[in-house]
């Protein structure tokens, strides 16, 4: 029998029937673990499920299974991918969601944009109060993950910021950097340091890493002065005089006759290479950056030291915070109680702390854990300095950091102001008053625009 549309069509038809039958008869979806966790950082993934290398201790998820009988799957999802997928899931009120998600601080604001009753994450106040963790976790670290007093995420970290520096190079230049308690003193010391090395033919030696095209390093300085571009109540703080002065000071650090900074490329292990080669000798360093430096610049062991950040004036904090992660439970999670138990185990338990120490130097936000002997040791990489204790000391002074949906836009504006202010400094070297006036004008215009944007995206409770 011949098929009147021809053999190729017949073959395609048969193939489509076979494929359809195959799809219809395929074995059911592989058994899903009892709890599915999305993480975006490799170090977190390793902490929870190990790095595949044989160890004497079972992994955290295995220990959790033995205790509760619940199987946990850790899925690594890149930050941007997680954003797109979670936004889509939350917007469509999807039922098939991960049971626990880790979110990065720069991503979280959009999830907190709806009225609190329609946020895709479950409020955790009850869980935290009931379990007693509410009082044990550093209160300042709840701020980024909260809206109107409702907490949607458990903080993973504190991320206090310090300065780490090449002690050998500063010693050679005869400069005692930790003695510099204020930023102006620090800048003067850095200029002296650069002059010392330039006189010896080292032309490209910069004192400190400060980004001249993004607000990444300006934000910690602002936080030190207890200012966020937009605070937790939605107030725009960028027109405050302290804010303007800080921006002007920063611009004079990255350009002009008092330039003490250069930026280090994120790629190609740029940070570590700059440290090793002595191109940049001081780095603004939260705890998560320590592992990176140690891993990529092991040869600097013993030559590095850590110090608190200098301040601008009394009342400022000697530290700031940079980065952050939370763990939350999507509202459509099928077993929130089990998900909460998992969060408690991963973030707050002794086992969780041990696993965290195995893979990173990240300080936990649980204040009682800071007394653990593991944080009292000296670090040979920093010449025996008790760096964990310094981080703990800084964590006690931690200023609150807020993120709102408009914060990312505000940071974009600040990046532009830094570039413009740096150009201004190059064109009018030494004219500090004019720079401050110009920065004030720019920031006032930005505040106006930010207000318009916040109003446009606002949803009343």
């Amino acid at each position: 029998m011949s098929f009147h549309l021809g053999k190729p069509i017949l073959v395609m038809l048969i193939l489509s029937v076979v494929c359809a039958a195959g799809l219809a008869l395929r074995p059911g979806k592989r058994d899903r673990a009892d709890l599915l966790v999305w993480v975006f950082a490799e170090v977190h993934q390793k902490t929870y499920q190990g790095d595949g290398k044989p160890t004497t201790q079972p992994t955290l998820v295995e220990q959790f299974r033995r205790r509760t009988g619940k199987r946990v799957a850790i899925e690594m999802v890149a930050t941007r991918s997680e954003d797109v997928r979670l936004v889509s899931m939350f917007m469509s009120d999807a039922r098939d969601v991960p049971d626990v998600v880790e979110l990065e601080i720069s991503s979280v604001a959009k999830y907190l944009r709806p009225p609190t009753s329609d946020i895709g994450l479950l409020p955790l106040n009850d869980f935290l109060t009931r379990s007693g963790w509410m009082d044990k976790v550093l209160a300042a670290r709840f701020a980024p993950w909260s809206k109107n007093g409702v907490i949607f995420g458990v903080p993973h970290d504190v991320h206090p910021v310090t300065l780490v520096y090449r002690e050998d190079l500063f010693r050679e230049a005869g400069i005692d950097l930790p003695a510099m308690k204020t930023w102006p003193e620090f800048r003067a010391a850095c200029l002296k340091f650069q002059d010392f090395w330039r006189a010896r033919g080292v032309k490209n030696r910069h004192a400190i890493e400060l980004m001249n095209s993004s607000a990444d390093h300006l934000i910690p300085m602002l936080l030190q002065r207890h200012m966020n571009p937009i605070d937790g109540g939605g107030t725009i703080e960028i027109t405050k005089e302290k804010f303007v002065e800080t921006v002007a000071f920063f611009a004079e650090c990255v350009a002009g006759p008092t330039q003490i900074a250069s930026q280090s490329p994120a790629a190609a292990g740029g940070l570590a290479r700059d440290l090793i080669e002595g191109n940049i000798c001081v780095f603004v360093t939260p705890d998560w950056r320590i592992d990176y430096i140690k891993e990529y610049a092991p040869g600097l062991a013993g030559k590095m030291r850590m110090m608190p950040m200098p301040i601008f004036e009394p009342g400022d904090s000697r530290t700031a915070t940079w980065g952050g992660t939370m763990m939350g439970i999507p509202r459509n999670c099928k077993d929130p109680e089990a998900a909460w138990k998992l969060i408690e185990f991963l973030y707050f338990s002794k086992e969780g702390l041990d696993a965290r120490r195995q893979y990173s130097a990240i300080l936990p936000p649980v204040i009682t854990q800071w007394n653990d002997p593991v944080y009292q040791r000296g670090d040979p990489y920093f010449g025996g300095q008790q760096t964990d204790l310094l981080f703990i000391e800084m964590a006690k002074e931690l200023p609150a950091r807020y993120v709102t949906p408009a914060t990312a836009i505000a940071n974009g504006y600040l990046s532009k102001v830094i570039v413009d202010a740096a150009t201004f400094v190059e064109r009018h070297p030494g004219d500090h008053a004019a720079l401050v006036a110009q920065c004030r004008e720019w920031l006032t215009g930005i505040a106006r625009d930010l207000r318009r944007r916040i109003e446009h995206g606002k949803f009343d409770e």
Partner: protein
Amino acid sequence: MTNEGGRGLSSKLWAMQAKYAPYLFVAPFLLLFCAFMVYPLLRSISMSFYSYAGPHTSRFVGLGHYRYFLGDFLLWIAVANTIVYAIVYMGLQIPLSLGLALLLNNPRVRFRNLFRFAFFAPYLVGNVFVSVIFVLLLSQRHGLIPKALGFFNPAWLEVSWLGDPINARIAIVVASLWLSVGWGMVFFLAALQGVDRELYDAAAVDGAGPWSRFRHVTLPGIKPVMTFLVVSGTIGALQLFELPYVIFLQHGSAAGPKWAGLTIVMYLYQQGFDLGDIGAACAVGWFLVLLILGVALVQIRISRAGREEES
């Protein structure tokens, strides 16, 4: 009687099958096309009239998003960046691709196939990979390009390629060209091989020099391909996203220094996935559709006018 009845049924079935089979074959495509193209397109129009915050939180804003965006200078920075990029990119990509194609179409060039593959290869690796490579190449002090420049002048070692608004724009164009010149070259090569050899012989007999032959024989012969490359390249350029996104994300902000890397699609992405308003993102999407449609229509009209003039 039974035989006749059976034959009648069989031929009826055959006739029915012949009548409906084409629809059956087209049905899967139509279903998928409607489900994944037509419906989302129509839905996105209606969504662009709403502001969304959560699954149960939306507000009808009518043309509010469109009005807001038309007054938002960030959108116009994105439009300006995108259009300037498209013009510079197309202005360089077409001549470079054509030049390479002419060179590699010359039988006197040895290892032509190897060179053809080498120039085409970057296109195979894709935007993200090229972005990562360029971040490494341009990395301040450590990248190959600053190091090479620093060899001539040590100060150039310190040039911030990705931190300076002008340099950053140059970097995006160069990375795009590296990615796509080989792709255009392949099309031009195919077009060049389709030009009738006899026309060259006739032109040579008429005393035409190399430039005249190129202008009066080669160019008209490859014009349809050139039109295709210009239109498709422009549409692609107006949709620029991954390249600046990946390059600048590693440098602090996806939009780059002073929004040098902010394109219309990145603005759309920010509205939808950074600020979390899918309705606003839909409105930007339709703005982009209109822009691309307008540009493509102008290009096609210009090309058609050119053809009519010639004929």
